[in-house]
């Protein structure tokens, strides 16, 4: 349970090596936190993340195998985690950016991005939602992106997967009203992590720590959608209003 003063006891991270996820877990109040499950593909990064969280004094930090693209395994995987105890917060943080030009040249690359970011998220998201409803409480945090607010020439494959994911998460949040569980949609702008490494910085680029503490604040306040940083909400409202012929010609 997340208690009356907002302290969680257990967290599941889907995309266990994600830098945004790690920063979020670090920003959570920790006095009641006793179990963190980092789910992802085996890597040095996920082990490092587990060691780092362990060193913060969290009593149980496990890593467990989870591949977003392997949707057939998601049911058993989610059951396994929830059968070991209630999960208060699920961070759905996996995702790949992909390379737009490469995807245009080799559409199977685009399919990979879509499979992880959208199909995989829908699959694991529904499995998680069932278990959250069954336990009658819990928060699912979905890492969407401003890239889904308006598709851009330079990364519309990625952007379209986030648009789909965002729409899915909105609907799922509505479906869960009254279930005790809820969905928080997070729409960051560009964040300085491995994913954006080497790309030119967009306006309002921020750090994973900023996203992490924004997520923790939003959970405390019971919000359902946030932009990070907050003012991006207004910028994106403007961006969405730009007519397409003009938008195409803007620097991407």
């Amino acid at each position: 349970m997340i208690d009356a003063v907002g302290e969680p006891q257990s967290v599941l991270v889907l995309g266990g090596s994600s830098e945004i996820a790690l920063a979020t877990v670090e920003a959570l109040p920790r006095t009641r936190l006793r179990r963190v499950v980092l789910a992802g593909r085996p890597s040095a990064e996920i082990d490092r993340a587990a060691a780092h969280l362990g060193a913060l004094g969290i009593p149980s930090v496990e890593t467990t195998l989870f591949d977003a693209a392997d949707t057939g395994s998601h049911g058993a995987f989610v059951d396994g985690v929830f059968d070991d105890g209630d999960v208060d917060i699920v961070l759905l943080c996996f995702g790949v950016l992909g390379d737009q030009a490469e995807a245009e040249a080799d559409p199977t690359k685009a399919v990979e991005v879509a499979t992880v970011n959208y199909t995989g998220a829908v699959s694991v998201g529904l499995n998680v939602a069932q278990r959250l409803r069954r336990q009658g409480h819990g928060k699912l945090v979905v890492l969407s992106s401003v890239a889904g607010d308006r598709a851009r020439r330079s990364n519309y494959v990625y952007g379209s997967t986030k648009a789909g994911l965002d729409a899915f998460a909105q609907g799922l949040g509505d479906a869960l009203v009254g279930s005790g569980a809820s969905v928080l949609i997070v729409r960051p702008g560009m964040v300085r992590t491995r994913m954006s490494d080497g790309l030119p910085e967009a306006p309002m680029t921020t750090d994973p720590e900023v996203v992490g503490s924004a997520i923790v604040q939003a959970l405390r306040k019971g919000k359902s959608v946030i932009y990070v940083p907050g003012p991006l909400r207004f910028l994106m409202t403007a961006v969405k209003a730009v007519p397409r012929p003009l938008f195409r010609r803007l620097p991407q």
Partner: protein
Amino acid sequence: MTAESPLMATDNDRLLTGWGRTAPSRATVRSPSTYDEVAEAIQEAGPRGVLARGLGRSYGDAAQSGGATVFDMTGLHRFELDIDSGTVTADAGASIDEILRAIVPAGFFVPVTAGTRFVTVGGAIAADIHGKNHHVEGSFGSHVVSMLVVDGTGHELVLSPTDSTTKDMFWATVGGMGLTGVIVEATFRLLAIETSSMSVDTVRCHDLDDVMARMIEGDDDYRYSVAWIDSVAPSGRGVLTRGDHARREQLTRKQVDAPLAYATPALPSAPAFIPNGLLNSASVRAFNEAWFRKHPKSRSNEIHSIPGFFHPLDGVRDWNRVYGPQGFLQYQFVVPDEAGWIVERTLSRLRDAGAPSFLTVLKRFGPANPAPLSFPHAGWTLAADVPAGNEALAPILDELDELVAEAGGRLYFAKDSRQSPSMVARTYPRLAEWHSVRDQMDPRGVFTSDLGRRLSL
């Protein structure tokens, strides 16, 4: 959408919280109308288990259980007064409110009442509630003669504190927070009264030391005693009210005409929506000032009504909404006499947090009873309502927990919504003993609550 969607809400789905309106969870609520229905539902319990709920007056997550089947016990509320033995035999869902309305005119009073009469008999036993008379008469469980409990296998057990084969189960259920079984019926002893009036002595005390000194000195002379503390004033000034049921000769001629008349005034409810933060230090300061001044400096043998003396808050329905959507919690601890300084420290730390409280109550407890999880033991108990949305609160309460634990004190499960499992393990030393009786009564682990899961009970 088809009816089979596992995400679809069912007709019996309810989001439940305690009186503090924090941390809701969804449960399937059933309203059993017979004891057999309770037993059947326990036998058919799913993996998330079952839990009994009374009137939901516990503040935190004791009477809720995410994903479980929760029995709304209030549909089972018959009761019978046995005038000869001075006892009541009641369904567990009967409320103290309805029982009082029947027994006061017959010359009886409940052995223990909380600060609200809207608690059920089941809730009173499961939390082993205490009243203003704890220092002389102990808690509710000490007045229970026997009870009928459906255990985790669906069997009805008759439990009695005097029967050597069932007394361990009896005491594990008293204060057991619904986790040993569902109480369906109980018989408890009443207090005979000559009148429905209270004879009350009131003293306004200029600071906390004054309050505490007077309580140590004089509480033993009274059946009922409690102090309201002005939590905003650094002095810790307060109003001490003590008294007993009035005897006939204490009534005026007019009152004597109907010495046992009992009426409960119905007052307006609090507005449904109140923004967070309305209850701030300034508004509480103004309220407390008015409340302090309202009381006479010192007055003896004043005649009060039962509701006015025991249940003043019941005059405003749904007053728990004044704390706004983020809700509130009540911090209640007991510490031994020698650690009385923790009372002062708590008040000052809550002031530091800017956590205003208009309901802050201090009382002295008498000795504990045999129930392993019963809260009261000899010493000071302080209860303070505070808004849960205050971000400074969590670390301050943890710091106070540490002092309470160090001093050999503990927190009250019926009020708790945030303590840690390790705090419980440290401060309820008879937890293991309780576990072994609980495991015997509920071998399948059917009884679950959010409180139980949160605290690893």
